[in-house]
């Protein structure tokens, strides 16, 4: 069922209402639309609202994450970071976006113009499509499909097409090399990411995101799943860092070797779309990590500490979800500003010689744990 609302972040953090959720708002809108219009029109209007909400969320998240990255980087590098435009530099990303919007979108001579202009839109579309099955709060999901995890794995693979397309169509050797590196990298690390997600699927017995979250009501998988889940969590974080082309795996845009890699020739809004898509992808993989391993919007519960659990329930579910997601995003940003970059052969060795065999054995272990019921 299609549940929508434009208010994604709860208006009141302090509203002490048990399991404050956005279900009420979305079902109110759903009911009102169905009373006012006939069901077909109601469905179409709901879809339009959902589309606008995704685009709005896309823009807001992109801007927030860019600013967050810059502030985190500044903090680690003993700088101040952007702090001039608006209070605490909050409007900095807005100003940057405005600048990029009014810039001329250049297409180099000799580029394959159609593919060159298409590539950033594919990158953006993939990022938007991935938002569909993510549960932002209790009962707050655009599309609760029964194959949610499979959908995420499948759609995120399309990202590589836009990068290869951009690299090939630019008619630039740096771009081409960046795209080839990226292709090898994303295809390789997809395997580890997929296998580490599978451990959770095996333990839960479902591909449905809601089922996976509900299975963590009495404890997050990372706590109750024993060693296999901890191993797969670590592998998942490494693999998604590589999949989103973030440092230390940012070989596709290794600026000291390839200038800017696959987006060397892009400028203006076309560059901004790649840039935003990168950050949205980071958000999405962290959201998936939070959902699968850290319980999504599930509050933190400890066994029979009733008072503690009760207190935890007062924190809105969306705060739990965004808190966990932003914690993982911070970890990934922390990687970026700490580690040097790997070399291409080391990158592929890490995946094929270490991560993939470990994930395979880990999956067997997780299966054994699931069959024998050793998890809590």
């Amino acid at each position, binding site marked *: 069922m299609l549940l929508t609302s434009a208010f994604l972040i709860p208006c009141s953090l302090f509203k002490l209402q048990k399991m404050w959720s956005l279900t009420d708002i979305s079902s109110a809108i759903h009911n009102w639309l169905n009373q006012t219009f006939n069901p077909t029109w109601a469905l179409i209007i709901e879809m339009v609202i959902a589309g606008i909400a995704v685009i709005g969320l896309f823009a807001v998240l992109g801007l927030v994450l860019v600013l967050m990255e810059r502030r985190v980087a500044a903090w680690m590098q003993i700088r101040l970071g952007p702090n001039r435009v608006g209070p605490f530099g909050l409007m900095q990303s807005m100003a940057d976006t405005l600048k990029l919007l009014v810039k001329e979108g250049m297409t180099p001579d000799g580029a394959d113009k159609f593919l060159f202009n298409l590539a950033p839109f594919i990158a953006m579309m993939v990022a938007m499509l991935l938002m569909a099955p993510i549960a932002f709060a209790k009962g707050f999901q655009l599309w609760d499909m029964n194959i949610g995890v499979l959908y995420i794995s499948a759609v995120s693979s399309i990202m590589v097409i836009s990068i290869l397309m951009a690299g090939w169509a630019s008619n630039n050797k740096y771009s081409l090399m960046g795209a080839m590196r990226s292709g090898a990298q994303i295809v390789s690390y997809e395997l580890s990411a997929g296998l580490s997600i599978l451990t959770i699927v095996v333990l839960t017995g479902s591909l449905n995101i809601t089922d996976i979250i509900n299975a963590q009501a009495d404890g997050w998988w990372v706590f109750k799943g024993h060693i296999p889940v901890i191993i797969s969590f670590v592998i998942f974080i490494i693999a998604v860092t590589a999949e989103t082309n973030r440092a230390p795996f940012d070989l596709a845009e290794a600026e000291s*070797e390839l200038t800017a890699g696959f987006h060397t020739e892009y400028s203006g809004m076309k560059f901004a779309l790649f840039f935003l898509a990168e950050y949205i992808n980071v958000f999405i993989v962290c959201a998936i990590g939070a959902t699968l391993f850290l319980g999504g919007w599930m509050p933190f519960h400890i066994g029979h500490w009733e008072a503690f659990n009760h207190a935890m329930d007062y924190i809105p579910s969306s705060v739990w979800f965004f808190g966990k997601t932003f914690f993982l995003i911070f970890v990934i940003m922390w990687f970026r500003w700490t580690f*040097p*970059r790997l070399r291409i052969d080391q990158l592929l060795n890490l995946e094929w010689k270490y991560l993939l065999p470990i994930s395979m054995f880990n999956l067997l272990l997780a299966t054994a744990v699931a069959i024998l019921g050793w998890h809590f």
Partner: protein
Amino acid sequence: MFEEIGTTTEGDLIINVGPQHPATHGVLHLVITLNGETIKKVEPHLGYIHRSIEKMCESLTYRQFIYVTSRMDYLSAHINNHACAMCVEKGMQIEVPERAQVIRVIMDELTRIASHELWWGAMAMDIGAFTPFFHAFREREKINEIMEETCGARLTMNYYVPGGLMADLHPDFQKKVKEFIVLFKRKIDEYDELVTGNIIFINRMKGVGFLSKEDAISYGCSGPAARGSGVNSDIRKLYPYAVYDKVQFDEVLETGCDSLARYMIRIREMKQSIRIIEQLIDNIPEGDFQAKTKAVLKLPKGEFYTRVETARGELGVYIVSEGGTTPYRIKFRSPGFSNLSALDHMARGSKLGDLVAMMGTLDLVIPDIDR
């Protein structure tokens, strides 16, 4: 002059790194022949920042030409000036006062630390770590402040004149240097924690850019690039000048012959520089900071050569004098040029990403290579 940029007949890819490229800190132009990611040939093209410094020096007097040399290897400005001042002093047979000699050594070693700090930051940035750059600049700034107080400049100091120094030390100099030593000893361990011990970093550096001892000698490498291959090439030890024969310090040698060895050399050299400064900072003798010289310097007819150890290696200054007020001919033997010539040999067969790391460990300063 340039090959046709594109693919060769064997289907290899030729790419240009530079003159405008984030990998080359300056306007170095490398034409790289690639087979996939593997390097087949590296060909440096120079001349983008050629300013005819040697020719310019021929029309400047012996007092004036020293200032131009600050612009060669701008990270070792003091040491360049030292070489030139020493060459003129040798020709004129000027006895430099002890105080000036000691201050010169302290300044040279501070310059060496500042240069290695910048190298450390840029080196880490070359292999993809941004943060060390800012951490390195934090400490380098302290040295720049010390220099600024005494010399009035932060990069091209022009503090040395034939016969001594241009001015006496700032009253705060000793205090500030001592503060810096305390700070730096703490920070250099932080550098090791941040970069040196990192497993990705070690994997990127170890066994990369192999330059054997024989090759290092035959390419004429000097400085840390040669000492990383186990070649005794420290001019401060081999041909001591100023007061280097009176201070205790070790010539840092590594036998790894790879990028990691060259990296470790510079890290350990910074510690040795601190050791030299510590010995001298409390023992600056009283006296004149400048010897009495004639207003117009005229070198006797003949040829004069001096050499010093800059942060990059051996810098030689060769002056041919006809007895006039300006040199007849000047030639600088710059360390970067010889070190760069070994790049092709080192890079063949390695990956494109490693080339950047190798260039980082050679510590190329382009105006030094291309005068």
